């Protein structure tokens, strides 16, 4: 039988609202696998590969439960690639390989932003992070001996506590998403879609309502630029000042004074 069809029937029996259960199972397996890897119990790359295949199967099953068009397939492919890059970043011991995993995660994240039609932010992410990661690559190559790994690369700092904390945080986030989906938490009451002035003064005019009518879906980069340089001009100026201050600070911190060296 077609496995995707099987997954679909299985998921429909399970109910769409139960996706969080599978997410919890995935989180638990990922946490246990990471824990075993860090303590050296799980050393074989084959086992890690098998776990990765199982994770991919879970993701495919989750994707099979809903209608997919081309855009969604590309979006989820970028998401999966990004999470895989992040996992490689966590697991891999060579710092250069970890930096490669980071680059994969961030560039795929830029792809996700592109598919969410945030084109400017996607391009800016690629430019900033590509520049930053290339520089970091140079730093890593400069600092670390490629022939042997340092002890601080091999022995991590409290992996068990960190795994537990990360698993609990992700589970809580998944559960809160599920609670919003089932209506346990009323998001209309918390008024996240209304401006603050409307919550505090109910008669106040909604300044974002006409904006939302004007631009139905924020897709155009021109609209982003108009919004950025009219409504949020002060923010942009602040960001520029921050960049200038950070440049001066970085030069001041990194310069080598002769007194200390001598």
């Amino acid at each position: 039988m077609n496995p995707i069809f099987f997954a679909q029937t299985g998921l429909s029996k399970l109910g769409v609202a139960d996706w969080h259960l599978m997410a919890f199972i995935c989180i638990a397996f990922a946490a246990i696998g990471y824990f075993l890897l860090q303590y050296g119990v799980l050393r074989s790359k084959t086992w890690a590969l098998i776990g990765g295949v199982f994770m991919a199967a879970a993701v495919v099953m989750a994707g099979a439960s809903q209608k997919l068009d081309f855009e969604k397939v590309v979006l989820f492919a970028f998401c999966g690639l990004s999470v895989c890059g992040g996992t490689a970043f966590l697991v891999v011991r060579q710092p250069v390989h970890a930096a490669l995993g980071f680059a994969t995660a961030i560039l795929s994240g830029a792809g996700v932003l592109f598919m969410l039609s945030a084109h400017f932010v996607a391009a800016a992410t690629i430019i900033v992070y590509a520049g930053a990661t290339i520089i970091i690559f140079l730093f890593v190559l400069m600092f670390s001996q490629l022939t042997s790994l340092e002890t601080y690369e091999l022995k991590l700092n409290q992996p068990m506590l960190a795994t537990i904390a990360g698993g609990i945080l992700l589970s809580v986030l998944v559960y809160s998403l599920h609670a919003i989906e089932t209506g346990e938490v009323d998001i209309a009451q918390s008024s996240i879609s209304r401006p603050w002035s409307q919550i505090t003064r109910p008669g106040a005019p909604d300044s974002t309502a006409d904006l939302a009518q004007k631009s139905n879906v924020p897709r155009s980069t021109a609209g982003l630029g108009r919004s950025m340089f009219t409504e949020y001009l002060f923010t942009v100026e602040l960001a520029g000042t921050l960049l200038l201050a950070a440049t001066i600070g970085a030069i001041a911190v990194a310069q080598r004074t002769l007194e200390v060296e001598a």
Partner: protein
Amino acid sequence: MSVLTHQMLLFGATLFVIGMVGFLTRRSMILMFLSLEMMLAGVSINFIAFGQEHKNYQGQIMSVMILTVAACEAALALALIVSLFRRKNTLDVCMWSELNETPTAPFAEKSEIIMEKELDHPLLTPAGLDPSIHPMPMTLSDGWTKEDDKQFRSTEGSSHA
């Protein structure tokens, strides 16, 4: 909320948690910094998903701000890492555990590596007492009494005189 927003929030949360676990476990300062950047990327995806949900540009503008702050952070963090690397010749963040507040048990590997650079003092403006000339007990439980305190204060006055 739409289904797409849900999925993107889940994706952003996953990236954030990956970055957090990396930040908590990694000991190389450069990789800790990369984990921070990954946490920022997760938050940025969250903002953009919410901007799509509410059909305005605020999320994208917040995301651009996050990018700016990430660039500033990269510049400053790399400068700090370079100056820290110059002092101790290692990227291990546990080497700097003496910067914490209370005297704690030293890290297990710390006693193995003693750099020559650690031994000489930095050339700052002289202030207070040299601890190698005037040794001071770390805690009160080490037998530090009021008389010791008086004596310490009197020697302090005499050393300056």
